């Protein structure tokens, strides 16, 4: 066994074991499993939220974009910061209602706020359809990383099977608490890897970050400002994209759910203050992508630029370390996605749609079944039908972002009507689908999802004004 392989396998097993034991002392009822008993303090909430920032996309996508597109990759830094700023104001309000009404999931919130079970089911379906391709993406990224880092010794399929089965196991025993603790391993490994590679790679190839940028400014200064090497991604695209993704970020059901896990609204606010700092290391990954742009022109898959450079520049055991970090980086978000999808299916589709009288214990049992179902579906899509969900993935962010107007208007504008929210949501999704699938993205230089979001907000307001208000007191 090569050192790289031993490190990758050891880390994956160790992380899963930690997740497995994390929940052993806690009785697993519905409240504990889906929202950690609503008892998460500042540390664990921070771990959980931070665990969501760095996904495999950060490893592969941020460097891949810096390599292939250039400046447009900066949008990643911006939208996260906007999302945390918005969360500072919005999440504590959601927490308050969740606490008062005992809510666990995003559709619970919609169903309660607008007193409509139908709206809850619609939101649940939007959430599940957005989660599945995202989950598949994490698995595919995991396979790509481990296969490349082990130099083919572990096939992508084997890596996906092993790590995802382990993830499913700790999800079943520990729920959200398991994810939070595996996050510790993940964050330490990931930040170490990013730090070493981000400073190391430019140093090895150019003698430092400054000289690397000087070379790049001489050779291709256009790569460093919008639109970089991607003609459709000028300043208007960046502005509309960061607004869309910043507003959409916490509309992902699994992130929205963190609002329910916290012990208090203050904890969420304090977290929002710190989180932007946690974004800064992403810039190191850009440096790697830019170095690859200068030293490895013509790569077929830009997403592999980071791993290709790491393999060129470092010994095998270090490559294994980076691969291990990448693998755990996929496991944490994957576990949270599985828990969220299972909770949506059992609570908001099964109970709300078919068995209104089901007890919490029954929903909990169904949740566990759904974990197996969702995991199996994700595996099938990742291994057998890798292209089946591409269209869903293209529109995933645009789709969940359409929930934003409903949440914000519902919280802060008393006239918001159920019919308005439903009409706006459907309009937004229809416009996004039409523009994206009709290849009209970007639309006049703007992100298509943003155009859809604007249409959605407009329809929500107009229909709400026309309809009778459904909220007697709103958020009060």
């Amino acid at each position, binding site marked *: 066994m090569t050192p790289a392989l031993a490190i990758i396998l050891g880390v994956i097993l160790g992380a899963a074991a930690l997740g497995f034991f994390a929940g052993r002392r806690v009785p697993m009822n519905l409240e504990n499993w889906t929202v950690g008993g609503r008892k998460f303090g500042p540390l664990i909430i921070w771990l959980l939220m931070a665990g969501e920032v760095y996904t495999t996309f950060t490893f592969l996508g941020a460097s891949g974009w810096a390599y292939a597109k250039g400046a447009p990759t900066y949008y990643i830094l911006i939208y996260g910061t906007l999302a945390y700023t918005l969360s500072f104001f919005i999440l504590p309000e959601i927490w308050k209602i969740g606490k008062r009404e005992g809510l666990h999931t995003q559709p619970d919130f919609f169903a309660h706020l607008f007193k409509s079970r139908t709206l809850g089911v619609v939101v649940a379906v939007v959430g599940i359809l957005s989660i599945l391709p995202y989950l598949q993406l994490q698995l595919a990224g995991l396979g790509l990383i481990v296969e490349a880092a082990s130099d083919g010794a572990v096939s992508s399929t084997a890596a996906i099977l092993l790590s995802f089965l382990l993830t499913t196991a700790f999800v079943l025993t520990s729920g959200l608490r398991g994810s939070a603790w595996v996050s510790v391993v993940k964050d330490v490994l990931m930040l170490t890897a990013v730090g070493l590679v981000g400073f190391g790679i430019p140093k090895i190839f150019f003698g430092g970050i400054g000289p690397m940028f000087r070379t790049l400014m001489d050779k291709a*200064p256009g790569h460093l400002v*919008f639109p970089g090497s991607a003609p459709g991604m000028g300043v208007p695209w960046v502005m509309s994209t960061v607004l869309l993704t910043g507003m959409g970020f916490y509309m992902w059901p699994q992130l929205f759910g963190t609002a329910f896990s916290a012990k208090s609204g203050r904890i969420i606010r304090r977290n929002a203050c710190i989180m932007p700092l946690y974004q800064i290391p992403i810039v190191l990954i850009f440096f790697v992508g830019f170095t690859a742009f200068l030293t490895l022109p013509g790569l077929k898959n830009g997403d592999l630029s980071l791993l290709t450079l790491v393999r060129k520049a470092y010994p095998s055991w270090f490559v294994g370390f980076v691969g291990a970090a990448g693998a755990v980086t996929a496991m944490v978000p994957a576990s949270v996605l599985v828990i969220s999808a299972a909770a949506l299916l059992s609570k908001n589709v099964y109970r709300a749609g078919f068995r209104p009288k089901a007890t919490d214990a029954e929903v909990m049992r169904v949740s566990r079944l759904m974990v197996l179902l969702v995991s199996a579906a994700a595996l099938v899509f990742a291994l057998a039908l890798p292209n089946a969900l591409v269209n869903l993935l293209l529109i995933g962010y645009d789709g969940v972002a359409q929930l934003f107007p409903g949440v914000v208007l519902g919280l802060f504008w008393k006239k918001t009507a159920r019919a308005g929210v439903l009409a706006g949501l459907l309009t937004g999704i229809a416009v996004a689908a039409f523009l994206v699938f009709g290849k009209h993205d970007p639309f006049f230089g703007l992100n298509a999802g943003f155009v859809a979001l604007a249409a959605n907000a407009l329809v929500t307001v107009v229909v709400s004004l026309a309809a009778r208000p459904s909220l007697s007191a709103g958020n009060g």
Partner: protein
Amino acid sequence: MRRGKKRALICGAVPFLALVFALPFVNRVRPVVFGLPFILFWILAWVALTPVFLFLADVSLRKDGEGRDEDR
């Protein structure tokens, strides 16, 4: 609206002004700052400054007594 809340919202608007609406004016390579192209330096600087503004927003809200019910 209470004064603290208003002040908090103004603090919260700052990152949006700097990181979205200022972009057309800062999309340039030079001047180079700390070895970084200007646009990247600008974005990084505002990502790092956002916690300061959110912290100020938090202080303003606490002056209102907001969140007292949550602090247990």
